[in-house]
């Protein structure tokens, strides 16, 4: 289990400007839908954006606090 604040702080460690929206998909605090908006994504293909998020959350994913993630990654201009 992990809280959205802790996940947000992990993401902001590598993307300080990131605005993170967290939806707990099953109420078990380990299956999440994440929307991350950051200028770091600007001009980057979708897969690389998702890799950036997975890298930021590498620790809580590896230790099992996060079981499943659905990701949306947008640049500040919505692209």
């Amino acid at each position, binding site marked *: 289990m992990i809280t959205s604040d802790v996940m947000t702080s992990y993401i902001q460690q590598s993307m300080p400007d990131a605005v993170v929206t967290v939806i707990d998909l099953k109420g078990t605090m380990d299956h999440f839908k994440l929307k991350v908006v950051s200028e770091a994504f600007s001009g980057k293909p*979708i*897969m690389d954006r*998702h*890799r950036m998020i997975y890298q930021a959350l*590498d620790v809580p*994913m590896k230790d099992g606090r996060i079981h*499943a*993630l*659905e*990701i949306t990654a947008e640049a500040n201009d919505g692209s």
Partner: protein
Amino acid sequence: MSDPIQEEVDREIKENKILIYGKGTKAQPKCGFTAETMQFFDKYGYEYELLDVLENPAKREVLTKMTNWPTLPKVFIGGTFYGDTDVLDPMEAKGEVEPLIKKAFEAA
């Protein structure tokens, strides 16, 4: 000494135009995202293969390293890696998926 698992993966990727590595089987998917990925491709009506790697940590490790992608399912179309439906859904919204699939099947 080349890695037998890598060879197996390379062969599977070449042999299947649409390939999903996931958890469970077509009849019994054991993960919501694996099922969602199958439904994604069901819409297009092209043949796809689902390979269950749930109980195969060594193969999952090889797949994770070669794709730099930590999660399952993992999708390959025409031998190229495309992540999962989090990647394919936005691509589909821009009409990028169907041409990819057609190209993969025409190239046979």
